[in-house]
């Protein structure tokens, strides 16, 4: 019998697991994907929003602002790249200045530092901005964060503190039996006193396994461009247009890796797993983005991608026990600003909601830190030489575009969250993230994974099940 089972290992599930791992509880996380943070937590704007935008008094406003305040410490503990670069919400027409003032007032109500900039101030801070700029709202506490490591390392930290993670485990049904729940999965039944539903896009389906619900998760797709980091100095902040009912609009932002993101679109889709991209949608993203920054060098484009937001029909985060059971907790509809909110949601769910139904006793040996990542290029020549002398693999570059060494990949493979795919390596190390998109390094990564998993290279997955990259050995069953 588990004390707590968390369904879903996205950013939210991972931070709930981390917060629960402080206590003497038997916690298990079930994830249907073969890696943590593989759906919405992988495909988003990678932004730690300041909290100027959500309607005051909502859960979105509360958890966003609280999460933003936690972000520096969390990223320090979890060794995740985070830069508080600030955001600018940019008015390009006179008529928008009124809305800018309203947002400024909303910031004050949410307790978020903000101020209105004159067109001259904006141009000075952002030389590539549309010269027609009429003003902007600067929020200095907004930041950019590496969303892959934020989620992976929250879960790694939870696992290091004793949480059990079960990947490729899909929940088929949940029954109430006596004073606990029985969770039916593709890998057998699991009993638990408390269940936390952090199943993202599928959280309504999970919630329905227990009782009828009045809310629904509607997948809302966003498509993006990724530009290479060679377009240095394109923008220095997270740049938003004025928000509309469709969300925060098409943004142009830097990332912690120096790349730039342009997007997302906002499209209602039927299929929760639809992460396809579309030429017309992306063309529209491009034309909207160029009203903010006219000179975006799209010839530096290295990838397009899309992700689905788990948009709730209630317009606010759903973070509460189910109607029937205070031991079945729904954490659903965590769309933007979900990434930045997740540490605060984790803390609240553990301390307040689980704390209400289970006794929380702190572990003596809990550590909030993950093992530090070794990033050779950030070290001095002397330190790098000492490192390579001890561990020569840090001297061998596997990914030439992003300068990722063999040692960094070996380090990732040796951590507590299992690594099953080429994308899992890519998310954590950036190998294959650059301009050649793995053209040169992918065979090396495949061989490393094959060796690590003790399987033939033809069994190594790119990402999802069935995504084997090489089909067969030449002349052995070729046809």
């Amino acid at each position, binding site marked *: 019998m588990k004390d707590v089972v968390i369904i879903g290992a996205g950013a939210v599930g991972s931070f709930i697991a981390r917060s629960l791992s402080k206590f003497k509880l038997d916690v298990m996380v079930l994830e249907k994907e073969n890696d943590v943070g593989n759906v919405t937590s992988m495909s988003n704007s990678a932004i730690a929003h300041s909290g100027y935008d959500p309607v005051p008094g909502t859960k979105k406003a509360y958890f966003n602002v609280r999460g933003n305040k936690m972000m520096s410490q969390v990223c320090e503990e979890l060794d995740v790249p985070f830069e508080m670069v600030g955001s600018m919400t940019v008015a390009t027409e006179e008529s928008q200045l009124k809305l800018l003032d309203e947002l400024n007032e909303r910031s004050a109500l949410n307790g978020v530092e903000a101020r209105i900039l004159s067109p001259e101030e904006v141009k000075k801070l952002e030389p590539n901005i549309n010269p027609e700029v009429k003003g902007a709202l600067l929020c200095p506490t907004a930041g950019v964060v590496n969303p892959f490591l934020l989620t992976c390392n929250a879960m790694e930290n939870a696992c290091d503190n004793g949480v059990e993670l079960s990947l490729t485990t899909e929940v088929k049904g949940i029954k109430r039996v006596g004073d606990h729940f029985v969770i039916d999965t593709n890998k057998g039944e699991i009993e638990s006193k408390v269940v936390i539903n952090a199943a993202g896009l599928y959280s309504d389906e999970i919630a329905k396994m227990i009782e009828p619900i009045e809310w629904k998760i509607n997948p809302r797709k966003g498509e993006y461009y990724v530009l290479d980091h*060679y377009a240095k100095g394109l923008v220095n902040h997270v740049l938003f247009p004025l928000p509309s009912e469709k969300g925060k609009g098409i943004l142009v932002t830097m990332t912690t890796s120096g790349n730039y993101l342009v997007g997302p679109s906002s499209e209602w889709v039927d299929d929760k797993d639809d992460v396809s991209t579309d*030429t017309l949608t992306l063309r529209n993203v491009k034309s909207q983005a160029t009203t903010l920054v006219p000179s975006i060098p799209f010839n530096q484009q290295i990838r397009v991608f899309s992700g689905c937001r788990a948009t709730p029909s209630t317009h606010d985060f759903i973070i509460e026990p189910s109607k029937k059971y205070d031991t079945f907790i729904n954490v659903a509809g965590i769309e933007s600003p979900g990434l930045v909110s997740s540490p605060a949601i984790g803390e609240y769910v553990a301390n307040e909601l689980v704390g209400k139904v289970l006794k929380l006793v702190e572990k003596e040996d809990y550590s909030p830190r993950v093992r530090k990542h070794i990033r050779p290029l950030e070290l001095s020549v002397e330190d790098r030489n000492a490192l390579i002398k001890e561990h020569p693999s840090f*001297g061998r570059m596997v990914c030439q575009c992003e300068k990722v060494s063999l040692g960094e990949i070996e380090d990732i493979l040796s951590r507590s969250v299992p690594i099953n795919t080429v994308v899992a390596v890519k998310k954590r190390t950036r190998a294959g993230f650059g301009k*050649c998109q793995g053209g040169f390094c992918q065979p090396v990564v495949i061989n490393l994974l094959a060796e690590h998993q003790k399987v033939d290279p033809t069994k190594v997955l790119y990402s999802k*099940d069935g*995504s084997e990259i090489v089909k067969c050995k030449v002349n052995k069953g070729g046809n």
Partner: protein
Amino acid sequence: MKNVDLVIIGGGSAGLAASVGAFDSGIKDILIIERNPFLGGILNQCIHNGFGLSEFKEELTGPEFASRFEKQVEDRKIPYVLNTTVTSITKDKVVTYTNEKEGVVEVQAKAIIMAAGCYERNAGAIGIPGDRPAGVITAGQAQLFLNEYGYMVGKKVFILGSGDIGLIMARRLTLEGAKVLGVAELCAWSNGLNRNMVQCLYDYDIPLYLSHTVTRVIGKGRVEAIEISQVDERMNPIHGTEKRFDVDTLVLSIGLVPNNNLLTDLGVEVGRSRGAAVNQNYETSIEGIFSCGNVLHVHDLVDYVVDEAREAGRSAARYLLEGKKETSKNIPVNPGEGIGYVVPSKLDVLSLKEKTAFKFRVRKPSKNVFIDYIVDGVTVKSTFKPVIIPSEMEVFNLPKNLLENAQQSIVISMRAKE
């Protein structure tokens, strides 16, 4: 810090030939830096023949061609390091490299030749619509998997782009038992060499769809199907022309891009080829830093690469032996009507030799045209071309007397015969 006269970045065809050119011109203190565990670069995965017809007057495979140059390097005892990556270059020519044995090494060079080759445009760069499953792979990567690692990337294949590597892979995959269902080309013409069209597609009855592109990739884990559509003259897909192919693999052969970031990081001026802007001595905008081979502009034949690289090696040697030039006068060389790029992109008229080679590509296939060489607005030479195509690099030599008085610009332009 180590001191070396000439550091060559890249031990492929360009780097090896450049080292030979420099060595034979009197520079002995050379270091070639190669990222792979072997010399020869991409030639090692090109196991088909057709290399060396002009360089060696015989038809060789890629590895054979490479081994001829490796031998030239070994015979001269030119030093090289393998499994080694250059992480940065400074304007003062400090080259930092790293490998397992030596750790991090800083080398003070007197001259540098950039010969780092190119990389392939991929699905991300053109944003192919649809899903992003496994099985969408560049032609060179498919070649690497097949020829160096011994793995087939798929059994039912469609190819986007008629670049040479794609055509060669159409044949190679067919010979290994895969079914290649077709090749789609966005342009109204093929972008491969004619001999590859014949030997790799027509001989195997593989259909070529000109003015077509992939408009959807379908598949969650692995590619399950692709959809192609015809495009109009502005290259927009035409609704209603969609055709679906059930394949497990989409191979992309959509172009090569100079791998020039070590130089662009330095602020070196970039030319229209996306490689460095160089003068006729292959010298970049930073004195003593040279560039040649596919990192400068993408070549059609390796024979031209080694020719160019040897010359770049000789130039670097001259620079090292003669020291800083007292005077130079760079005149821009611009592509005119119908021309994609020209190398060199500037001409130092004070250091002209008897002949200067201009290399360029046209933008689209044309018949019965003149190529005009225009100095300061005056056409100094015209050549007639019954046929000219983008997939073949043009090389034309102009004598010193036509160039030495240039003051403003040199333009190469295409003009239809009236």
